[in-house]
């Protein structure tokens, strides 16, 4: 066996031992540490496969026997899972202590991470689907273990429902591919009619797209992610939806060949919708974790934009551009996993200290929790896509891919590329808007609640992981070439040009971008100006001026207030609701109640009517289940008669 294989087996064994240890009393921290160590070992195995470009274990097979193996694409996802999960599991050691059902949640977290890895290393249809189901069920169990409120139960129900609907697509596409022998032979589908390939593509897009949270199939995501414990949210949002994208990449880039022409434009459309609508709804949220969940929809959209651009470029025969777009998508996959887990883990720390995460009742956490706060700020800047953080690099590459597609493609490609690039630019601006709001309401300003004023920094086991992840966000933002080089190894379009993996990202047709030099200039200028500022000195700390008003916490700006201008401008699309009821006591105003909300239109227009129909139909069906023995005997008799009749007449 090779080193990688040994690492994989040893890591799985250590992680499994960790799961057992964490479930016994007093074993929580050591168990989670063991799990983290095991996952890290598996991650190293994955990383070695990517760097060494040599797979281990089996290749894909169409059979039913359980087989596993790692190729560079799987290796990349394993490494990403490990980079996110290892800190998340260590964090869980601090986060779960003294919380309800801690041992069970700790054990199920380990199972969840191993299931994610299992999906990625599966090399046959049965293992893949088994791990897929385990991956889907594990977080539901963790959510229910953590909280049993009616709202949580409903979120879990919606989650499981959409997961199973998605499962249909995944099962159909994977089993059909295995049946046709397409898991091993890339030419197996060429003989099939276009209709078969189109149906397979629909099944894959619906199945994997739902799990990835692509709009308009995302409805479960903003409900399930906020309900989970922080570290499970981090892994769900960081990696589970990415594992669904892994499935989509396997399908669209490797197995479903030749791909029907409509797939890439449809994916581009869904991606553009996810980007801009995801971030727009995120902006209108007033609860931190729900807001972060909507941002996952946005970022999956950005990744899918890159994937769609790669498909379009490849269809136009521009393989270098396709490789660039694919690399952009993969880099953003890793980047989003990093900064989203920073944000979710920090949100968990805030919740632990403050209780609820209602944005209007936090404030000033940067002063009471400086380490967690700074990590949260770094994560926010990364997700907002501002240099010198990693989010900017992958968004730059994705924009570059789309614009180059527009500049060099056929007329339809030009239109699609330019429009998608404009949508991505609007998305980036909205993300900046959203995270200015989040940073302001969570970290800055005065404390808006007593619990916030008395909060203090969480222990090292909870700050260490987020600082590590935030450091990676900055590191990849400054030297992305380190990650881009290995990413080129797994591209279906061949390696990236050498100009793109160095210190300077000289994408063909671009004006080049040197993130390291840019970060250095920004850092030097900032430091110099700060020194100059210090030299002049500052006046003694004084209350703020705000144009001579007396500061009053009741006049503090809210999340809804800050975004009001945009809500008014986009009222046609967002359709905000607002009710003001004034209670008059004679001529005196007794009380004014103001309520406003931005309804989630996808739920209201798309899903609620559909769900209503389904429930109505099931009510009719329920009448057949009367519970009376005679009725069931009648069903049996009728079935028997029908079967006998069929046998007598013959089917064909």
């Amino acid at each position, binding site marked *: 066996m090779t080193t990688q294989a040994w690492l994989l087996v040893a890591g799985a064994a250590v992680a499994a031992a960790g799961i057992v240890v964490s479930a016994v009393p007093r074993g929580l921290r050591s168990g989670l540490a063991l799990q983290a160590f095991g996952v890290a070992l598996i991650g190293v195995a994955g990383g070695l496969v990517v760097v060494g470009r040599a797979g281990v274990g089996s290749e894909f097979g169409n059979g039913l026997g359980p087989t596993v193996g790692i190729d560079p694409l799987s290796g990349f996802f394993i490494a990403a899972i490990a980079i996110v999960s290892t800190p998340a599991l260590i964090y869980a050691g601090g986060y779960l202590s003294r919380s309800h059902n801690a041992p069970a949640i700790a054990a199920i977290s380990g199972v969840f991470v191993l299931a994610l890895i299992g999906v990625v290393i599966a090399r046959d249809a049965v293992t893949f689907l088994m791990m897929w189901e385990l991956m889907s069920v594990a977080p539901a169990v963790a959510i229910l273990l953590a909280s049993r409120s009616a709202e949580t139960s409903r979120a879990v129900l919606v989650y499981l429902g959409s997961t199973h609907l998605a499962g249909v697509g995944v099962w159909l596409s994977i089993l059909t591919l295995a049946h046709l022998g397409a898991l091993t032979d890339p030419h197996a589908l060429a003989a099939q009619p276009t209709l078969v390939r189109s149906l397979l593509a629909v099944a894959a897009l619906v199945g994997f797209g739902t799990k990835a949270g692509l709009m308009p199939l995302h409805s479960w995501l903003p409900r399930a992610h906020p309900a989970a414990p922080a570290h499970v949210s981090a892994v769900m949002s960081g990696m589970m939806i990415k594992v669904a994208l892994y499935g989509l990449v396997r399908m669209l880039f490797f197995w479903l060949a030749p791909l029907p022409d409509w797939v890439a434009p449809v994916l581009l459309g869904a991606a553009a919708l996810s980007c801009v609508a995801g971030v727009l709804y995120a902006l209108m949220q007033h609860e931190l974790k729900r807001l972060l969940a909507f941002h996952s929809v946005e970022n999956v959209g950005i990744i899918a934009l890159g994937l769609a651009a790669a498909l379009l470029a490849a269809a136009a025969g521009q393989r270098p551009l396709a490789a660039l777009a694919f690399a952009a998508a993969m880099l953003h996959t890793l980047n989003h996993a990093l900064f989203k887990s920073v944000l979710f883990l920090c949100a968990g720390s805030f919740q632990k200290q403050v209780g609820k995460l209602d944005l209007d009742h936090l404030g000033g956490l*940067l002063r009471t929790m400086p380490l967690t706060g700074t990590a949260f*700020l770094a994560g926010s800047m990364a997700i*907002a896509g*501002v*240099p010198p953080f990693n989010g900017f690099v992958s968004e*730059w590459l994705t*924009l*570059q891919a789309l*614009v*180059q597609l*527009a*500049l*060099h493609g056929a007329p339809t490609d*030009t*239109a699609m590329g*330019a429009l998608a*690039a*404009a*949508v991505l*630019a*609007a998305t*980036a*601006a*909205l993300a*900046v*808007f959203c995270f200015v709001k989040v*940073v*302001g309401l969570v970290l*800055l*300003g005065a404390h808006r609640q007593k619990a916030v004023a008395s909060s203090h920094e969480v222990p090292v086991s909870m700050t260490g992981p987020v600082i590590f992840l935030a450091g990676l966000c900055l590191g990849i933002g400054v030297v992305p070439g380190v990650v881009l080089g290995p990413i080129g190894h797994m591209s279906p379009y061949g390696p990236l040009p050498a100009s793109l993996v160095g210190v*300077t990202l000289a994408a063909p*047709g*671009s*004006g*080049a*971008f*040197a993130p390291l*030099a*840019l970060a250095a*200039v*920004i850092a030097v*200028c900032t430091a110099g*100006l*700060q020194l*100059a*500022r210090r030299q*002049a000195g500052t*006046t003694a700390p*004084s*209350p*703020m*001026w*705000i*144009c001579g*008003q007396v500061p009053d916490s009741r*006049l503090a*700006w809210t999340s809804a*207030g800050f*975004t009001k201008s*945009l809500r008014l401008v986009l009222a046609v699309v967002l359709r905000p609701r607002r009710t003001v009821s004034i209670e008059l006591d004679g001529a005196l105003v007794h009380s004014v109640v103001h309520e406003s909300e931005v309804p989630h239109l996808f739920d209201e227009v798309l899903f609620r009517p559909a769900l209503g129909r389904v429930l109505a139909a099931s009510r009719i069906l329920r009448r057949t289940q009367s519970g009376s023995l005679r009725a069931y005997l009648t069903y049996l008799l009728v079935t028997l008669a029908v079967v006998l009749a069929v046998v007598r007449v013959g089917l064909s």
Partner: protein
Amino acid sequence: MRGSILAVAVQLAGLVMAPLLPGLIQTIKARLQGRRGTSPLQPYRELRRLWHKRSVAPLDTTFMYRMAPSVSAAALVGALLVVPIGASTIGWFGSDMLVLVGLLALARFATAAAAWDPGGGFSLMGAGRDLMFSVFTEPLLLLALVLVAAGARSTDLIRMVAAASDAHVASLPAHWCAALAFGLVVLVETGRQPIDNPDTHLELTMVHEGPLLEYAGRDLAMLQWTSAARHWLVLMLAAGLFVPLPQTAPWNILALAAAVATLCAFIGVIESSLAKMRILRVPALLGAGVATCMIGLASWIAQGAT
């Protein structure tokens, strides 16, 4: 370094010369309105005055508040080093048009987030409006740049400037659409009428001045320089991308200076003749810009197809 030494020297000098542009616009405006006005050097005098004053750090503010002016100024320094002058640049970190978008976003993030620290109503109103505009400006800027890049077949600003100095771009409808759209971007980024009124300080309608209200001393000086640098950035880009300039060394700089001065005069005329729009109407104006870009894109595609 790419291109001529003289042009790169001008690029670096831009860091110092940037405050000239708002001063020039102010002077032109005053003359148009029949006043004598201030000298174009007035912004320097203000910067000097502020530089000798101490900064103010209100109670309950964090390092975000103290760092924001330096970070925005640093982002604009980076942006000025990206924008080529007469197809030349110092090129420390490339000359890509998409990097500019990121650097402007960094400056905006820093100032807008810092407005939350003191948390005053005027600051946050201004910050929220500025961010709301940016949601429409960024796609507009990108589409305008893409239309110019389409002519150069590259997103490299140097090639785009070189391609724009070719006379044949004047016959492309896409180029004219891009110029119109970019004009709107110039007005938004510089905070000029009809988008924002730079002459007001302390009014309910202010946008860009809002987040600056609490700052004083060197902090305010940095923020004022940042605003001036934003003028320099967009006007240099506008002159480079939409005015056909000669290619040879000393003449291109002189022509560029003349073009920028003309653009300043143009802004002065617009400021003197237009009233400020209602804030909620601004997105419609920017939307019209996006529609213009769409027409340009359609014309580009149609020309490419024939």
